[in-house]
């Protein structure tokens, strides 16, 4: 038991190679290691050690299609959202940072209430999270950043377990920004997070009393689950439609691209599980 504990601590805190990764990826920080959104290179190094443990050892992530992420310049990374907590964003971020085809330090748009939570707000911004304000997103695209946007918001991350792998309503803001700023959209499917924390009800009165967007009734356990990340090919849209109905059509095209990747991911997972069962026999 003691051996196992030492092993985890060692994995989280004693991996100096993470410093080397953080030191080389492109970033635009000032003299004290901060950028204009609160990203902090020092905190990023600490966080990366923890995320590496989650990525490699806990979720045993396999990422596909990393070559589709532009090596430089603006882009919008659009994944499905799941797992109650923002671990899916962290895993996508880690995949981008350690991408062998060209590392990127992405920014992730998060819920607006998070900065009001002590420690959490600061910690999130120090590792690249930014409140989901279109002005922030515009500024970051202008700054040639890779920006992760979850268009489902809490509708996706906090949906009930029975709705797993069913995309919820997408906001259209990301499409307006992609068109206006000529930013390619990278559709992403996250497979495996849905099963980690399972919600069976949304306790709306409690959410209202606490001033939170949701209060999920969850099994208080993080179920181990292998995670697959599928990055699709960039989709480009010209800034040539103006009606919301046309924008909605384009959003549905992105949803369809994500659904296609989800299908591929679920099939891959089923094949892997079948192989494991055969090996065990």
């Amino acid at each position, binding site marked *: 038991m003691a051996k196992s504990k030492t092993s985890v601590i060692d994995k989280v805190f004693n991996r100096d190679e993470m410093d080397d990764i953080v030191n080389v990826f492109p970033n635009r920080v*000032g*003299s*004290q290691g*901060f*950028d*204009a*959104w*609160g990203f*902090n290179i020092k905190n990023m190094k600490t966080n990366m050690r923890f995320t590496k443990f989650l990525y490699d050892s806990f979720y045993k992530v396999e990422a596909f299609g990393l070559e589709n992420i532009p090596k430089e310049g603006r882009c919008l990374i659009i994944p499905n959202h799941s797992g109650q907590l923002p671990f899916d964003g962290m895993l996508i971020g880690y995949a981008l940072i350690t991408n062998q085809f060209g590392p990127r330090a992405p920014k992730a748009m998060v819920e*607006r*209430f998070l*900065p*009001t*939570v*002590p*420690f959490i*707000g*600061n910690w999130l*911004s*120090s590792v690249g999270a*930014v*409140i989901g*304000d279109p*002005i*922030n997103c515009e*500024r970051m695209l202008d700054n040639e950043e890779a920006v992760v946007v979850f268009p489902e918001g809490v509708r996706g991350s906090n949906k009930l377990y029975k709705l797993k792998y069913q995309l919820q309503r997408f906001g259209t803001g990301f499409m307006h920004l992609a068109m206006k700023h000529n930013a390619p959209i990278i559709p992403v499917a996250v497979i495996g997070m849905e099963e980690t924390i399972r919600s069976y009800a949304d306790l709306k009165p409690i959410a209202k009393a606490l001033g939170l967007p949701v209060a999920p009734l969850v099994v208080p356990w993080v179920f181990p689950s292998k995670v697959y990340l599928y990055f699709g090919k960039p989709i480009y849209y010209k800034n040539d439609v103006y009606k919301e109905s046309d924008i909605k059509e384009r959003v549905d095209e992105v949803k369809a691209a994500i659904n296609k990747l989800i299908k591929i991911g679920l099939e891959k997972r089923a094949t892997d599980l079948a192989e494991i069962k055969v090996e065990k026999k």
Partner: protein
Amino acid sequence: MEPKKKILVTGAAGALAKKVIDKLKKDYKIIAIDFRTKVDLGIPVESYKVDFNKRIFEDVFREHQFDGIIHLGRISAQELNRFTRYNANVIGTRKLFDLARKYNVPKTLVMSTYFVYGASPYNPSLLDETTPLKASELTMDLVDSVELENLSSIYLYKHPELHITVLRPCNIAGPGVRNTFSLLLSEKRSPVLWGFSPLMQFIHIDDMRDAICTAFEKNIPGVYNVAPDDYIGFQDAIKIAGSQRIQIPSVPPSLTEGIARFLKWKSFPPYLINYFKYPVIIDGSLFAKTFGFKPKKTLEDIFTYYRSLK
């Protein structure tokens, strides 16, 4: 030889005004005024103690034909009561603008503050000059700062002949500066809010002096943020400046406010609690581009100064 142009500098007792006067006095004839005291700035600078809202203020204009006004005189929210501040900062400034019109002063520079944007968890980063000013939504103690801005904007557009330039600087820091956040950097023990370290910008007083002098001389009317594109978390700044952090409970907010009211700490006023929690990062690029301005002093220069005080 042509006589030197005359400039009126208000708030002459302040550290920033003294620096501005010192820089401009060789090229201009400076008339310095302050409502608090008659400041001795040495010979060639004429100095008066005068209240903008008294009739005698006009005598300064009758006696001197000004070629410009640098309006740095403002009672900060730490000083006096709300009513007196409003009268001095808003009504007094209106009087100043009216006199500038009456006596045909061709340019006026007004000093504002980034506080006018208000500290809110919903603030995007890099607020530009068109961002609505929400400070008065958060606290009545900053109403005069927002109103001063609104008044300046009205005069800027209604009376273009005044050529008004409004500067909204981030936290000014360095020798002699006595604003809230510079006080915090200079103290041995400074209050911080538990779990919050908002991103901040600091500009050295010497750079701010240069920004004022450049904006005044180039005279391109408008409203401008003045801030470097370098940032630091507030608690990190306190640590690097060599101060010990005193963690004040941040939840529930009513407890924090109660503590601030009870302590009556000059450097931890209740009306600024939100600024200890949420970042107000301003975009200084318009000013930098328009006036070719780049701060010379770094954050490290600022913190080195504060460390030397400990």
